[in-house]
């Protein structure tokens, strides 16, 4: 199949940027979307034009490095699928495809389709961990974790940190990302000691970078790991509880 691509090109953070149009020819159904772009880039290099800069790494949908707005949808049309796992059989011959970077104030464009997502690391740095210095912790089986709790924590921990939730949100909110990490840690017995401090620190750091959540739900539609917004409700509950809590009494059950 042949496609017309409208691609966002931006030479650097301070460049205003513009769309450029390219032809992608002889595209095969079984190609991934990024392999299609690889081919366009090889042709650009052969023609002496600078290739399109875009981020990708594992190409297995797990590292979270890739992420493109494809026809206005974060990671494109296929539900629960990161850009690198999207295949060209989802497109039609002759189609025009618009490709843009994540658009969010917290994710400044570095070049073309590549953005800076370090704001997500800042949220983890604020408290997205359980303090357990390397040493001699208890035997792993001394901590019993009921299977439903472990499974739900894992559902939340599946987040790949790609930022699609932020890109899809009309407010560029970071709630889905933040709540996924909070749910992972706050649902586990090991995470209880730091639960309230963690919740406040992460939420308040998030608010330094990202917009507010107004429950559009676009984030869960865009999420390649289909993380539900239920976790946002859990986060809001814990945040409220934390504000009302006397921390000196949290050792009491």
């Amino acid at each position, binding site marked *: 199949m042949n496609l017309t691509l409208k691609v966002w090109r931006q030479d650097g953070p301070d460049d205003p940027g513009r769309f450029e149009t390219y032809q992608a020819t002889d595209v095969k159904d079984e190609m991934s979307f990024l392999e299609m772009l690889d081919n366009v880039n090889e042709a650009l290099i052969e023609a002496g*034009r600078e290739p399109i800069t875009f981020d990708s790494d594992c190409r297995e949908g797990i*590292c*979270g490095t890739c992420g493109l707005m494809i026809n206005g949808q974060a990671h494109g049309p296929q539900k629960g699928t990161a850009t690198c796992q999207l295949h060209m059989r989802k497109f039609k011959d002759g189609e025009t495809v618009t490709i843009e970077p994540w658009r969010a104030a917290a994710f400044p464009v570095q070049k073309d389709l590549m953005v800076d997502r370090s704001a*997500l690391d800042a949220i*983890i740095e604020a408290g997205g961990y359980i303090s357990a210095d390397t040493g001699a912790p208890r035997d792993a089986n001394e901590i019993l974790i009921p299977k439903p709790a472990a499974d739900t924590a894992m559902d939340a*921990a*599946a987040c790949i*940190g790609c930022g699609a939730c932020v890109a899809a949100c009309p407010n560029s909110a970071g709630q889905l990302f933040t709540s996924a990490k909070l749910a992972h840690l706050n649902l586990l017995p090991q995470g209880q000691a730091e639960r309230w401090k963690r919740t406040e620190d992460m939420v308040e750091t998030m608010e330094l970078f990202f917009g507010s959540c107004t429950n559009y739900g676009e984030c869960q539609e865009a999420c390649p790991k289909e993380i539900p917004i239920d976790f946002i409700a859990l986060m809001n509950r814990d945040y409220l509880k934390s504000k009302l809590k006397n921390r000196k009494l949290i050792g009491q059950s």
Partner: protein
Amino acid sequence: MSTITLDSKVPSGPIQDRWDNHRFNMKLVNPANKRKFTVLVVGTGLAGAAAAATLAELGYQVKCFTFHDSPRRAHSIAAQGGINAAKNYKNDGDSIYRLFYDTVEGGDFRARESNVYRLAQVSVDIIDQCVAQGVPFAREYGGLLDNRSFGGAQVSRTFYARGQTGQQLLLGAYQALMQQVSLGRVELHTKTELLDVVTKDGVCVGIVTRDITSGEVRSWSGHATLLCTGGYGNAFYLSTNAMNSNATAAWRAHKKGALFANPCYTQIHPTCIPASDEFQSKLTLMSESLRNDGRIWVPKRMDDNRPPDQIPEEDRDYYLERRYPSFGNLAPRDIASRAAKVVVDEGRGVGPLKNGVYLDFSDAIGRLGKNVVFERYGNLFDMYERITDEDPMKVPMRIYPASHYTMGGLWVDYNLMTNIPGLYALGEANFSDHGANRLGASALMQGLADGYFVAPYTVGDYLAGLLGQAPVSTDDPAFREAEAGINDEIKRWLSVGGTKSPEYYHRELGKLVWDYCGMAREKSGLEKAISEIPALREEFEKNVRVLGNAEGVNQSLEKVARVADFFELGELMCRDALQREESCGGHFRVEHQTEEGEAQRDDENFSFVGAWEYTGKGNAPVLHKEPLEFEFVKPTVRSYK
């Protein structure tokens, strides 16, 4: 010629006491002095993130570097199946000694016993540490940890988090690292790629990096440098490694004097999705855990074009079950991969390009029901369907082996230090624990063992001897010269002005390395590769086209240096494969096989670690040998029949 002597520093005594005694004999650094030492950690995968976090917890000043935009992107994240540990929670006869034994045997008797025993010992601590951090391992209904079995073992010792074990372990280490960043004990430099290792008077004093956002080349000085930069599987171009995984850090250390050990030991993973066309950029792995319930087969006769469900039982060849009745579909990776190559080479491959074998779940679905099978493997089935448009619940999967992991790497002693004092290599970047073949679920174990439980002790022992010494200034000529060298190299690439992309040459190189140094190697092919690779490299150096400039983001410029290093490394892989006149583990020499086509080891002549010394461009590298001694596990013919 050099005067290198390979001292493995392996302790003596009963094997179960060696690590404890060694730790006791190590020098300590008192807490107030720890902050006077700077440690550079390069790479933030399991080994790097774990080491950086742990060293910072101990009080050292850590500077940590990754070329990714976040430490969480490192390729450890893509490991699916699990992590081994000798917990014996299943009461099925596992023990530290058995894990040690299985790993030495699985590695085809080409690993150091002492290292492997230590690995098995600390495996137990890793699981405790990870659970304490909140890694959500799979649980049983009673709340206890669940285990599964994996290739090359007859016990269930593999801990897992769905099909995303690597992700969860890496996020655990990443979170520990970010906590140390928040405490100011780790200075984190993302989007910063190592381009040179700096030595002064034979000692490693730091590194030179390029900021891949701004293009700035600069030096960093440290008392010790840890390379945790992964393997070199992308030398094959098509592999299951991430697009940006590269060997540049290890290779440049090699060019500064660090020996590179066993480069021909590469692992070809049996269960990957076969390539679908020439422009494929990478291959996707399907977890080995699928072999627990899937049965592998091909049609008995060549060019049987019937759809799989119309091929009756009597026309199918379940070749692993036939050749290896006791391990069957769970035969170790090297054996399963070669067996697949044999049937595809015979013309019995399946799929449009006849380049795969079936992995069939219909028996398991019949036995366990659709729901159970889907619960176990659903996420893998979904991934498979996204790529191939076929549903493994209805049509058997098609799989074929692909480059996946490299057992070879920088030579290190028992302390994980290379032959350059102050320079360490951890995780897949070193050669130490897997011999000629790695067992499934052991890569995660080794990465975390090195990072959490080995390097933090052994690095301290080295640093204790440097008390009172300030790190070498980055104004020192050693750093200035290294920086100038990198700047020259960048200018050179940008001014070649050729016609083909770095990607093109990587693909062409990969074809040579795969064809001649892949799953089966023979003298004539290796000799051919050793003459063709330098010729192709010469063309590459004259005809590659790198557009753009040195300032700002330039992905072609990042790529070209990595491809250049793969050229040199690919050639060394072939040289190593040529000198090793035996078959062992992932290294299969066509000339050395039994009548039944099994690998034939030569313990008398090749029971050694082959460590190569770089002697300058255009000069033949020099082989150094570290003899391997087996005091506890006596080498036998590996039998999985």
